[in-house]
């Protein structure tokens, strides 16, 4: 298939000095947001005890373990700022992401042993489920660095029970194993109760010599029987029992290596555990990098730094999406699907590290005379019309047929509204796109370049509306909300304003509420909030985007559950005609 894929159609053009000058303040604004995110990331890394204190105890921190375990330059962190229940600790207390271990992609996740010895905290199980879902969707191993002291008991009501509570990951591990996806665990420290099941539920358990895991820990074993309350005498009795307890913690290596054999191997050194994980990663099946390459990998033809001058910080400013894409894909080449139809979206085949991917993105700006063909108003990119929805449905279906992973780029204000749009079937075509996506069963990722708004955020591969979104990224320009704050203020308060005026009352209180709502929308749609709530899985610098695209594509093609020979593909033939 060299004629199709060796050199595809080149696109994009070099930035002109005028554009660089004109976009300078916008670039500064984007970098300022990135700097703010960077500070928050640093703060998230520094929660809990200082690294020196952990090291003084003879332990490595979770970050030091990750650095030793993961191949240099491959770590793509996810959920760094995820803290949906706004824990005072500033973290859900797990650290996770995509990385290569001895050349093989894995989802890697570890408890932050700097914070309450890696305790369960509110919001943590949701974080863990994102990691197990990611391993399932990409069909790659899940590697755990277990170091979990169990539940933070004073807040257990926030996470212990419920359908997605702290025990949910244990059966998710079982589901991964049923799907043929191994779960490896490197186990450190004391892991009682919840920590015990975190340790026992993976496939292969590799333990440090001082590790233990148990149904219950020393705190429970040495405790007292409930008597309906506490008084001084009972607490003194409790203190005496605790001081007198001299037994070793239950479930150490003497028990779970020598007696039960649950621990497959035990290592004297912390790094030995990590070397063991590397050994097991090497023992797993994985396609080599070249197996699915349709062409030699190439860098994009234009510098990625251009993105700061191409993606406007101002959400109202129009730009050229194709120029963004040209900075991200191999050789700035593509095969565009139906370029003369549905001009508000780009659909086409591109390469990342020589491997084929389907790309879909919103184009911006005026769409030309007579479009949309069913309306008497002009069409603007960012919005979705009948043709664009039909085109995406067709493209997605063909990607599913040809087993091509899909990368979505959103900057959308929504689907066209009004009676003419309804007659043009946009409601059914939008839901039809959700159906088409579900039918594909191919992994997808999403980049919310700027706006992710209304139902369009759902139907364009958003994480809310399908099972195939592996992860979503935000940028410094990301803004996710049901509609713009000003539109929401009008929808909420217009009738009330009319009533107040008719009653002869001052409009000032209504105006104040409208402006408050606009402000609240702004605060709750920006990148940091999106990351904290999990609307996106990570906010990344523009210059990091291609690296995440490479991680996604590399992971997808490592152990695919189904394949389509390139010479059997239909989409390239449909494009070429």
């Amino acid at each position, binding site marked *: 298939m060299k004629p199709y894929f060796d050199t595809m159609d080149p696109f994009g053009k070099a930035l*002109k000095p*005028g*554009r660089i000058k*004109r976009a300078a303040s916008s670039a500064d604004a984007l970098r300022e947001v990135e700097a703010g995110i960077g500070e928050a990331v640093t703060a998230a890394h520094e929660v809990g005890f200082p690294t020196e204190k952990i090291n003084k105890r003879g332990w490595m921190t979770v970050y030091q373990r990750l650095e030793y375990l993961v191949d240099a330059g491959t770590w793509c962190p996810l959920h760094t700022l995820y803290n949906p229940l706004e824990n005072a600790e500033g973290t859900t207390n797990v650290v996770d992401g995509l990385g290569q271990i001895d050349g093989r992609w894995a989802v890697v996740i570890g408890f932050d042993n700097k914070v309450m010895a890696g305790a369960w905290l509110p919001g943590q199980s949701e974080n863990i489920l994102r990691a197990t879902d990611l391993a399932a969707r990409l069909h790659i191993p899940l590697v755990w660095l277990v170091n979990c002291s169990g539940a933070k008991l004073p807040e257990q009501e926030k996470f212990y029970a419920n359908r997605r509570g702290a025990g949910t990951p244990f059966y998710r591990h079982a589901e991964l194993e049923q799907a043929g996806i191994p779960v490896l665990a490197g186990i450190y420290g004391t892991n009682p109760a919840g920590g015990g099941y975190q340790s026992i539920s993976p496939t292969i358990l590799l333990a440090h010599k001082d590790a233990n895991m148990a149904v219950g820990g020393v705190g429970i074993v040495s405790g007292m029987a409930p008597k309906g309350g506490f008084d001084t005498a009972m607490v003194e009795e409790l203190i005496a029992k605790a001081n007198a307890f001299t037994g070793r913690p239950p479930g150490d290596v003497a028990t779970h290596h020598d007696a039960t054999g649950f621990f497959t191997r035990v290592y004297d050194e912390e790094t030995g555990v990590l070397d063991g994980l590397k050994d097991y990663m090497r023992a797993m099946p994985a396609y080599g990098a070249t197996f699915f390459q349709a062409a030699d990998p190439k860098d994009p033809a234009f510098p990625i730094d251009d993105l700061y001058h191409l993606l406007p910080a*101002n959400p*109202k*400013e*129009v730009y050229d999406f194709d120029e963004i894409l040209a900075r991200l894909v191999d050789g700035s080449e593509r095969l565009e699907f139906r370029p003369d139809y549905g001009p508000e979206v780009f659909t086409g085949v591109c390469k990342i590290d020589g491997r084929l991917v389907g790309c879909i993105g919103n184009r*911006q*700006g*005026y769409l030309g*005379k007579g479009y949309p063909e069913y309306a008497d108003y*002009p069409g*603007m990119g*960012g919005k979705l019309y009948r043709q664009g929805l039909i085109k995406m449905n067709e493209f997605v279906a063909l990607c599913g047929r040809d087993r091509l992973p899909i990368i979505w780029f959103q900057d959308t*204000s929504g689907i066209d509204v009004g009676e003419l749009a309804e007659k043009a079937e946009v409601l059914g075509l939008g839901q039809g796109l959700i159906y088409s996506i579900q039918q594909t069963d191919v992994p997808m990722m999403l980049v919310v370049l700027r706006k992710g708004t209304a139902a369009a955020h759902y139907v364009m591969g958003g994480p809310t509306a399908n099972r195939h979104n592996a992860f979503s990224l935000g940028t410094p320009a990301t803004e996710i909300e049901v509609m713009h704050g000003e539109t929401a203020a009008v929808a909420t308060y217009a009738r009330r304003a009319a009533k107040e005026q008719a009653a002869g009352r001052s409009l000032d209180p209504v105006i104040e509420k409208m402006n408050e709502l606009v402000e609240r929308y702004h605060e709750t749609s920006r990148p940091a909030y999106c990351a904290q709530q999990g609307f996106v899985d990570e906010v990344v610098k523009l210059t990091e985007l291609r690296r995440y695209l490479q991680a996604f594509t590399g992971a997808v093609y490592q152990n695919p559950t189904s394949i389509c020979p390139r010479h059997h593909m239909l989409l390239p033939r449909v494009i070429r005609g």
Partner: protein
Amino acid sequence: MAEDVLAPLAGKVLSVTVGVGDVVEEDDELLVLEAMKMETVVYAPADGTVSTIMAQVGQQVEEDDPLMTLG
């Protein structure tokens, strides 16, 4: 040869980036129109010198209205 720059769509002139006598290159920004809640930049269709500017900030223009002339 003089060339009129036409409004690509109906909208309000938000800003005019160039002045009479300015030398521009193809794709240089000339002015910004606001329409459908979006800001659309109008670029120079070819190299030239701005000889006349008809568009005024705040003015409502219709599709194909002349905005300026490049000489």
